[in-house]
């Protein structure tokens, strides 16, 4: 499991470093270095195996049900990248120790760096594509943290967000591409995928899959036209650029091209897309690099260009081109990391990176200058430096492939032009910075950096030279095994040598070298041209920001247009949606709406009542602005409904409807007190017309639905209730038995709803202070005699009678119309009359325990405990029992456990109703009087 530990070590190390950083600045660096060495130690024992050409696979398991196991894979390609990541990582850690200033948090830097290192190792050592993607996105996240390291700087924040957005978008495309790949092959594992190239290339989804995967690779490796994020990522501290933007993260894209090379390459689509993007990037990068005044800007565009070169090599698709691509990955990593570090030293010592001001540094830092010049020569592709070798291989491949294409001669011309510009910008880097007169107005006086800051650069530069001069003795074994890993086949014969005779590639190199010098010498007009004609028109960042701005603006407009916080709109949408759904359901051209059931004859009284109901409902709508009138009319509607219940022999429902109606009206009257008697007209005619149409449609729809249901034959489970009510439930009032027994659980829920309503309204009113009107709209003050004596005395007389009625209704409920719910409402009405007639304060004092909370709690508790009691007899919740007891005087009397349940219902109904009414009433009193003594009620 050493590969697992290899990848895990940096992640665990990140936490360690963050913890150790509290001890001191150097501790973090030492710890990070130690972690990296430890990771290397995990890798070392596996190197011989990888060199022997075998692939190490280590499986951990994670999500096998979805085809995703964590499997780590080490072959030549993975080994090469792991060495690059760890080796250059180690150098960067050393370098950063001296680069960061005392104000910078060491712990945060090194922890983020190690997170990135772990993620990158994960990318290159993944066997499973989805696992690879996980690490891939982690590199994006870690790079977000690293680029935005200097949080106070706007360019760092924006650069980090841009990099995240672009590479994040690519990552999502890559996910889609990988999903398709997995679908084609039936596995996400490379071992299966790399062997299934023929299946993949022949699959109908090959082209969309390829486009998605390439989108991921191109965004990550900054290929044109997605290259623009990389220069802005230069806002990161230079060690980050040296690591992420030369050797590792941007190489993840080309790594992916290399990794999937056997599976995806070899089609015209691959050739044109990959080579095309690579060449465009190569040219654009090389050309633009020349004109960047910022040292790191030049290096960034140079990196873009070299990434284009590598991409183009993989696009060409021959085995030798792939070898060259791998070789250039190695070379570019070494010289570019060195150059970034050198640029960092210069920036560090001069306080600026502007090449128009940094001149003549040779005199101040000859050692650094020598190192930078060697690395720059490698970048330019000068013989004896490593960049020359791979670049010549690229030229040779370009010439080779051009013979097979129409207009093929363009290819060597283009790559030579790119080489030419590479020479020119490398020359600029050397000449402008180290010679070219004296420094201009530098913030600091430059001098050589600390000894250990140069060591990493020295190591890299020595590598450039060694590889450049003795390629076969140094890099050949590693290159060979890495290329074999790419091709999944033996590496083709290749000859790493400086001299290949007078080949076309040599002539191209010569043209590039001479032409590059000439371009640099004659650069002035070119600069003018670029700065006046090209730069202002070709700003990818501006396009990106414009698009992003448009996206945000569009989102704001759309959301603002939809989410206006308007209740009528919300309700309108709901009605509309319900109508569409209902209409879609009912629409049928074969089935008539009216069912087969025979209609009942219509008698005069029913007709009259119905017409009255319709008239009252219509009048409510028409007169809704006169609130009191509307309230009376809606009361009429409710009472007529009660009459309809009676007509259809449902006395329980009628009783309930009546008492609910009374309580509701009282409640609304109390609430209306706080509102003006007439509500103003708030909506215009179009609005009202629209709402009217919607309302008519909804009403018609509901009517049609009811008509369709009622005209159909009726066959329900009701028969069972009728049959079992007395025998099973112990009551002959089936409605009541349904409420407290058959569907007692519903009732338990509903009384909880009632309790919740009471508590909710209580909580809301508690914080509400509403001013009541002192006068009515005509300017008359309210009657001083608030509690007329006759009414007060009358209601006091009525109270015992009303309570007796409610007790009667309660007790007969199980067998005759009545029950706890109705009895509770009657009690509530009886009590509320006392409040209305005598005032809240007066009643409160005289009604013992008028606090309603315990009543509600007790009611619910009784109902629940009654249900629980059946547990004791081994029956489910709410199982009822009943028996007959003989009471003296009263005689035979039936007792049912459901009656206890009903008592609970009764208490909750009384409690909740009164809680609401009393507090509305108390607020009423408080609004035009000194606060009443109801405070502290709870």
């Amino acid at each position: 499991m050493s590969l697992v530990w290899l990848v895990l070590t940096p992640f665990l190390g990140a936490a360690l470093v963050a913890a150790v950083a509290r001890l001191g600045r150097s501790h973090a660096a030492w710890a990070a270095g130690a972690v990296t060495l430890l990771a290397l130690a995990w890798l070392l024992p596996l190197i011989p195996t990888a060199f022997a050409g075998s692939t190490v696979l280590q499986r951990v398991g994670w999500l096998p049900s979805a085809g995703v196991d964590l499997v780590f894979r080490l072959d030549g390609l993975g080994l090469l990248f792991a060495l690059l990541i760890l080796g250059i990582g180690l150098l960067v850690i050393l370098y950063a120790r001296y680069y960061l200033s005392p104000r910078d948090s060491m712990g945060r830097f090194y922890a983020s760096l190690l997170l990135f290192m772990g993620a990158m190792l994960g990318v290159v050592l993944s066997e499973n594509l989805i696992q690879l993607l996980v690490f891939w996105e982690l590199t994006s996240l870690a790079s977000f943290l690293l680029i935005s390291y200097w949080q106070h700087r706007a360019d760092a924040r924006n650069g980090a967000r841009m990099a995240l957005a672009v590479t994040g978008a690519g990552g999502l495309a890559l996910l889609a591409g990988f999903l398709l790949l997995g679908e084609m092959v039936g596995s996400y594992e490379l071992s299966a995928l790399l062997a299934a190239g023929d299946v993949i290339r022949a699959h109908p989804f090959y082209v969309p899959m390829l486009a998605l995967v390439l989108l991921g690779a191109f965004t990550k490796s900054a290929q044109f036209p997605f290259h623009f994020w990389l220069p802005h990522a230069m806002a990161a501290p230079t060690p980050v650029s040296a690591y992420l933007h030369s050797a590792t993260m941007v190489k993840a894209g080309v790594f992916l091209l290399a990794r999937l090379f056997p599976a995806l390459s070899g089609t015209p689509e691959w050739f044109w897309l990959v080579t095309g993007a690579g060449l465009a990037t190569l040219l654009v990068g090389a050309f633009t690099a020349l004109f960047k005044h910022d040292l790191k800007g030049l290096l960034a565009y140079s990196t873009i260009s070299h990434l284009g070169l590598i991409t183009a090599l993989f696009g060409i698709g021959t085995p030798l081109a792939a070898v060259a691509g791998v070789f250039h990955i190695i070379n570019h990593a070494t010289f570019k990391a060195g150059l970034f570090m050198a640029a960092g030293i210069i920036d560090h010592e001069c306080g600026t990176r502007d090449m128009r001001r940094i001149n003549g540094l040779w005199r101040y830092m000859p050692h650094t200058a020598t190192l930078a010049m060697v690395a720059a020569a490698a970048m330019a592709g000068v013989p004896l430096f490593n960049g020359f070798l791979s670049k010549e291989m690229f030229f040779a491949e370009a010439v080779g492939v051009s013979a097979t294409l129409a207009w093929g001669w363009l290819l060597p011309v283009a790559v030579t032009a790119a080489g030419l510009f590479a020479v020119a910008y490398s020359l600029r880097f050397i000449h402008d910075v180290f010679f070219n007169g004296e420094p201009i107005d530098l913030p600091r006086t430059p001098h050589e950096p600390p000894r250990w800051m140069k060591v990493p650069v020295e190591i890299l530069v020595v590598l450039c030279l060694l590889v450049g001069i003795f390629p076969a003795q140094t890099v050949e074994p590693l290159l060979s095994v890495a290329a074999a890993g790419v091709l999944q086949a033996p590496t083709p014969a290749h000859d790493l040598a400086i001299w290949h005779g007078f080949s076309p590639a040599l002539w191209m190199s010569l043209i590039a070298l001479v032409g590059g010098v000439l371009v640099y010498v004659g650069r002035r007009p070119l600069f003018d041209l670029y700065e006046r004609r090209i730069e202002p028109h070709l700003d990818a960042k501006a396009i990106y920001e414009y698009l992003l701005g448009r996206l945000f603006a569009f989102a704001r407009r759309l959301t603002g247009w939809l989410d206006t916080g308007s209740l009528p709109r919300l309700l309108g949408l709901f009605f509309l949606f319900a109508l569409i759904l209902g209409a879609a359901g009912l629409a049928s051209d074969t089935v008539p709406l009216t069912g087969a059931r025979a209609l009942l004859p219509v008698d005069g009284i029913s007709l009259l009542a119905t017409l009255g109901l319709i008239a009252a409902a219509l009048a409510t709508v028409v007169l809704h602005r006169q609130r009191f009138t509307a309230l009376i009319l809606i009361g009429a509607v409710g009472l007529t409904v009660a009459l309809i219940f009676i007509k259809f022999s449902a006395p329980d429902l009628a009783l309930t409807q009546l008492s609910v109606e009374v309580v509701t009206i009282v409640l609304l009257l109390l609430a209306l007190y706080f509102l003006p008697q007439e509500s103003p007209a708030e909506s215009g005619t179009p609005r009202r017309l629209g709402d009217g149409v919607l309302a008519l449609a909804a009403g018609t729809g509901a009517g049609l639905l009811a008509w369709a249901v009622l005209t159909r034959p009726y066959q329900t489970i009701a028969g069972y209730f009728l049959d079992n009510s007395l025998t099973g439930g112990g009551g002959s009032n089936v409605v009541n038995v349904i409420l407290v027994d058959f569907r007692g659980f519903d009732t338990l829920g509903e009384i909880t709803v009632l309790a919740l309503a009471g508590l909710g309204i209580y909580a809301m009113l508690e914080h509400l202070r509403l001013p009541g009107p002192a006068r009515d709209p005509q300017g008359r003050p309210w009657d001083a005699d608030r509690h007329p004596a006759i009414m007060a005395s009358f209601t006091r007389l009525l109270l015992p009678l009303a309570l007796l009625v409610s007790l009667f209704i309660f007790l007969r409920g199980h067998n005759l119309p009545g029950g706890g719910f109705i009895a509770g409402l009657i009690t509530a009405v009886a009590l509320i009359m006392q409040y209305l007639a005598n005032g809240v304060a007066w009643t409160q004092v005289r009604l013992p325990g008028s606090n309603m909370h315990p009543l509600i709690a007790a009611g619910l508790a009784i109902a629940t405990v009654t249900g629980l009691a059946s547990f004791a007899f081994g029956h489910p919740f709410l199982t009822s029992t009943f028996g007959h007891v003989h009471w003296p005087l009263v005689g035979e009397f039936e007792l049912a456990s459901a009656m206890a349940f009903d008592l609970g219902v009764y208490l909750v109904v009384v409690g909740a109703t009164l809680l609401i009414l009393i507090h509305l009433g108390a607020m009423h009193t408080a609004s035009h009087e000194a606060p009443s003594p109801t405070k502290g009620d709870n």
Partner: protein
Amino acid sequence: MSHLVILPVLLPLFAGILLLAVRHAALPLRRALSVTAMLAQLALALLLFIRVSGGEVLVYALGDWPAPFGIVLVADRLAAWLLLITAALAFWVALDAARGEDARGRHFHVLLQWQVFGLAGAFLTGDLFNLFVFFEILLLASYGLMLHGGGAWRTRAGLHYVVVNLLGSTLFLFAVGTLYGVLGTLNMADLAQKVAATPAENVPLVRAAGLMLFGVFALKAALLPLYLWLPAAYAHTSAPVAALFAIMTKVGAYAILRVYSLIFGPGAGPLADLIEPWLMPLALATLALGMFGVLASRRLKQQVAYLVVASAGTLLAAFALNSVEGIAAGLYYLPHTTFAAAALFLLAEAIARRRGEVADRLETGPKIAHARVLGGLFFVAAVASAGLPPLSGFVGKFLLLRAALEHPAAAWVLGVVLAGGLAGVIALARSGSLLFYRPVHALEAVAAPPALAASLVPIAGLLLLGLGLTVWADPVLRAAQATATQLLQPYEYIHAVLGEH
């Protein structure tokens, strides 16, 4: 008949009653009672989950009345899974509220317990009208919780919430009434059999009722075009309540999954797969509009609320795939998005408390106290919510997309889900950058920032749950696949409820 099925319903009901009865007791005592009850609820949910994990469907006939005449509770894998998620969430919410939010108004813990009562009942009931009753309990309890603490904005948003949901209840009654009027039963298993055998002359009516029910559930699930009540309501209520409400839209999603797999599922004869043409387009549109809302948000809480909308779209897109893999992906995604959204709501509150006047507005503000810790947590929660690797959000999204490849609308699903993910990344990166990277030092920082440790516990707890979903993704996924398989074979459910018919 095991009482275990009903205990998760009775426990919170009883705890609520008890808390109401002892409302004058010392606050710490009531808090302890509430939190303990939530822990016990978690234990019960876990027991039930284990009990049904073998595939058994437990039926509990209330009042000992046989189905379809009495009400039954039915515990299958789906119900137990949702109960477990609810209990885990509610525990952290109760703990968070006990830091002081519960003292800002009356009866917080009573309402909280009854909210859980409503949730448990809704998930367990096997009776359509009883589902309505539990929807009412949920509505009233959530309304009370939403208003908790008071304030003009809260009252306004609460009014919109309650009015539109009461309208939804009315539509629910229309639909249930129609179904009862035509089919003569309310038991869901019985309805499934009766719907499958609907005679041709009644098909349009049953279809209309089924679609109207979909309207009700779409309202609860915050599906386009009915999601507009959500952002304001969630953004203006208190943090623990908003965190709890992360599960509320899932009740709608649950109801859609249950009713349209059981009653109007593949076996429903002339009404098979009733909402198939509706669900996917609406879900994807909801996801898109939710993400536009995330981009457009001017306050952090509003942004999180829109993330909830978008996640509702994602979840229902998964369910709309109507395959074992698709539903399993949704069932994996469901707890992830619930916990992530809850953690983000709590974080938003912790951040807002430290920014003085600016509060959670997405503008430059003062330097935040404890920025390192809060920023780190925000980063983690944002990564999870945006569906970036390696957290549960990514796993959920991956499973969804993987399942979607088989669907005719695969390109749409992939496009919208991935683009939505990108929008989330862009918007959350911007928010994080504004909140943590760009302090204006001229602005006065909050003099005495609230204590950090206590507020971190619930947030960390919720994020750890998400981490658990990531690490143990495989067992969770296997359970989800088993659940989806069970759902798509409703015969087991019907047989368990009605016996041999």
